[in-house]
């Protein structure tokens, strides 16, 4: 008999190209639908894939239910950020923000509802949009990215109402202080700036890299991630992941993590962070590493906690980054499975 050979499946030109595309895919952003049952993920090729969390989590889940229900080409460039209002999915990347109706996406016949471009000063290169932030009280959307400004867009009229100046390099991330209408932004210039939305003025600046405790010059100054909880703020990136007390603007806890962090969030009395490396890190506020849960991607760029009250059965943590897979954690202890593009 012929010996069974460890032969890879014969691949044609198209298959090789697709395999390479999957291999070099980066999932930049993810967002849970308002009903809590679906997860949208956007990659570096400008595609958005919709996964059904409820199907993947159900007891009779098959391999197919871990594949996207719908994939559509949303942008020409990467999809860096997505947010959901109660009816719309807003996605942004290459300088434009586009709106999609959730109801239509799920019916698989989606067309963009509208698209807006903030007023940019330069025309040579269209600046990217790295972060979107919804301000529910004002019914507005804040966009920030390549042109170093925060643009506010009124969701009702679709007009850009104001631009906040101050950053000297591009902006990575935004965070909203729930109680007072204030927004935090962190950027490549290494500063975290606090903006008052009522007066449209910068109220506070923390230049993280200037603090010796957390500065790491070999990694750069950039602030890659931000999260806030009333008086507390946690940020990381080039400098070490640090917990700050905002009123006194002093670093209180420095988390011992060598790799730059790309996403951080408060969860109950924990801080979850992810970045370079396979793991989702769980920190006590005291700076103690509670757990490191390994995922399937070599690097993570975004975490998403599905806390929609409408779908309690789909309450999961999802993490995505430098691979075509979205890891799903049903509890914070271990990775249950991966959704895949």
């Amino acid at each position, binding site marked *: *008999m*012929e*010996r069974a*050979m*460890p*032969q*890879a*499946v*014969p*691949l*044609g*030109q198209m298959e*090789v*190209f697709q*395999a*390479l*595309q*999957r*291999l*070099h895919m*980066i999932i*930049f952003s993810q967002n849970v639908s308002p009903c809590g049952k679906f997860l949208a993920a956007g990659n570096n090729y400008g595609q958005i894939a919709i996964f059904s969390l409820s199907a993947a989590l159900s007891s009779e889940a098959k391999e197919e239910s871990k594949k996207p229900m719908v994939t559509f080409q949303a942008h020409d*460039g*990467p999809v*860096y950020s997505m947010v959901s209002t109660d009816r719309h999915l807003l996605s942004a990347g290459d300088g434009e923000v586009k709106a999609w109706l959730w109801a239509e996406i799920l019916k698989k016949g989606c067309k963009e509802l509208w698209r807006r471009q903030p007023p940019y000063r*330069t025309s*040579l*290169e269209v600046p*990217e949009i*790295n972060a979107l932030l919804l301000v529910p009280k004002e019914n507005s959307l804040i966009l920030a990215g*390549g042109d170093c400004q925060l643009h506010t867009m009124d969701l009702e009229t679709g007009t850009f109402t104001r631009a906040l100046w101050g950053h000297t390099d*591009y902006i*990575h991330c935004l965070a909203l202080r729930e109680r007072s209408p204030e927004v935090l932004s962190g950027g*490549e210039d290494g500063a975290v700036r606090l903006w008052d939305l009522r007066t449209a003025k910068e109220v506070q600046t923390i230049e993280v890299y200037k603090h010796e405790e957390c500065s790491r*010059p*070999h990694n*750069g100054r*950039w602030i*890659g991630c931000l999260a806030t909880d009333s008086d507390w703020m946690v940020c990381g990136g080039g400098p070490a992941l640090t917990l700050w007390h905002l009123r006194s603007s002093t670093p209180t806890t420095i988390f011992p993590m060598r*790799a730059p962090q*790309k996403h951080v969030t408060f969860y109950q009395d924990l801080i979850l962070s992810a970045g*370079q*490396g396979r793991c989702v890190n769980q920190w006590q506020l005291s700076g103690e590493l509670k757990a490191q849960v390994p995922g399937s991607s*070599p*690097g993570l*760029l975004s975490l998403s906690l599905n806390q929609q009250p409408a779908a309690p059965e789909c309450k999961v943590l999802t993490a995505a980054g*430098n691979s075509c897979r979205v890891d799903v954690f049903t509890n914070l202890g271990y990775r249950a499975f991966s959704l895949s593009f």
Partner: protein
Amino acid sequence: MELQLKGSVIVLTLNSTNNGVTSGWEEGKYYSEEAEVDRRDPGRDYELYKYTCQELQRLMAEIQDLKSRGGKDAAVEIEDRRIQSCVHFMILKKLNRLAHIRLKKGRDQTHEAKQKVDAYHLQLQNLLYEVMHLQKEITKCLEFKSKHEEIDLVSLEEFYKEAPPDISKAEVTMGDPHQQTLARLDWELEQRKRLAEKYRECLSNKEKILKEIEVKKEYLSSLQPRLNSIMQASLPVQEYLFMPFDQAHKQYETARHLPPPLYVLFVQTTAYGQACAHMKSSQPPRQDKTLSVAIEGSVDEAKALFKPPEDSQDDESDSDAEEEQTTKRRRPTLGVQLDDKRKEMLKRHPLSVMLDLKCKDDSVLHLTFYYLMNLNIMTVKAKVTTATELITPISAGDLLSPDSVLSCLYPGDHGKKTPNPANQYQFDKVGILTLRDYVLDLGHPYLWVQKLGGLHFPKEQPQHTVIADHSLSASHMETTMKLLKTRVQSRLALHKQFASLEHGIVPVTSDCQYLFPAKVVSRLVKWVSIAHEDYTELHFTKDIVEAGLAGDTNLYYMALVERGTESDACSSPSSGKGCHSQDVKYRTLLPLCSPCTHLGGIESCDSSQLSWHLIGQGFLLEPPRCCLWCCHPAPALAAKLQAAVVLNPGYSSIPPVFQLCLNWKGEKTNNNDDNIRAMESEVNVCYKELCGPRPSHQLLTNQLQRLCVLLDVYLETESHDDSVEGPKEFPQEKMCLRLFRGPSRMKPFKYNHPQGFFSHR
């Protein structure tokens, strides 16, 4: 008189009876009661009768009464009464007669009427019968089918168009369908007559021609011996003039002894070669240089194979007997026997088909097709010869080796397994594990070879009779020949490229120059081939192996790109003179521009606005320098970029895949550095922009050159650690709009050709 009161007729009657007897009788000569009957009314007679009867009754009663009384004058009275009664009786008699006459008369009338009715009835019957008969006749007429309806007449328009007016008579026939049909029938008859005439003519013509043919045949048959003698005489001339007409003829003769699959292959390739030659030019078919076919081997041996079967059977039984004997006698020879059996099974047909495929650059692919008689499969051996002697680079060892040059011509067709499922059972018998161990000797049984020979093997069931099919062969011929040509050309191109790659030169042709900036500092320093196993054991190639892109049919290489060591021209702490000599070397090896052209790059992009804009934006971080060669500080550390390359046998339609590992301030791979990942994706996913002009043989070298550019960008844009004293290790020379972009802080890897700046993808 009472009677007279009753009515004139009766009065008359009474007159005649009482008074005028004489007169009555006188008249009686012509008196007839029959006539009287007519004149009298029967109703009145009835009344009279009733009245008479009453009178009689009364008279009788009076007589009775008188008699019973018996008076004197009774007798007179009675007499009187008797006379009266007599009169009444007379009347009764008369009435009786009348009644009889009437009855008779009535009977006669009835009879007469009855006879009349009978006569009429008979007449009616006759008429009805006649009607029925006529109706039958009518239906018979209506159902009558005429013969002409079966005739397929020409259509009406055609008829009026073609028929002469004396037949068609349009003015008469237009309104009258009957006349029209008649006219059409006339026309039909006319036509048929004409055709019959023609038929007769043709017949006679045919007769004549047959006779002519007969005569010519006789002439031709007399020509044959004469031609033969001329042919014989012309042979030396043909040989002298190198005109292989006869040789081709002989080859066809030999082809008759080819086994069916090789015959199919021979015929189809010859046909394809001729067709190509026809398409290319108006040259005679035999002069085609791109494809030539020949048969090799001994014809006698082939003929010997077709000996009468009895002999071979005898041989076999003999050998069987011998076999038994030997096994009994000497056991240790079992292995030898098995070897013999294996040899017998793997025996090739003594004839083989040689196919020479010539490419544009005069290199030739020699293919020799064999047929394994007992396995019923075909194999091929390949050899590539080039017009000029090639210096074989070490890394190019496998590129043109007969073992791998044709591997995976179609996806997955590596030619190491027998395509005939039936063979496995045969192998089991003689203890052959796999054909793989014998392919070097026998040639590769690629699937396309079977298809060219018209052999089609089903996937599931072993079929013992596989017939060589011409159509299968023909349908695969063109694509396969094209694939063979592109394969050889791309391999030869790679072969040449490898020679310079091994010397650390990335050959970039002038038509691909626009893909790269004028100045590339990173250099390729090593290019070696590595084994499949070594590749899979590398720590940074795991992803590719897991994705199934690293099969054992691929070729594997390792490239090393460096920047910042002694080989870097600018880093050498030499004087300006040395620098210039390096410069000269660069210019000769790589078509690099003079040191200042990158500055010219901006100026040439006609918008001076651009540079103004760049500076205005504050993006232009480093002003372009005047002389790049001499202003560099000596780098402290060399950056070494290892690239493991998977070269698919289907290159260049399937791109080579690169995996990178950078050794500079620690080891950086796609696992721990997003920008290394981006660099990989730049060469692997965006390979289409690097293909260059078709048939994109420059892809691999362009990818390597791109890798050098990417390494330059990576190193030059690396953010400088402010805390460390001293200048940057790799000063930024590339123009970039921005250094970082997006959440994963990508570097500007995309090169924009005419302007010469780098931007983000």
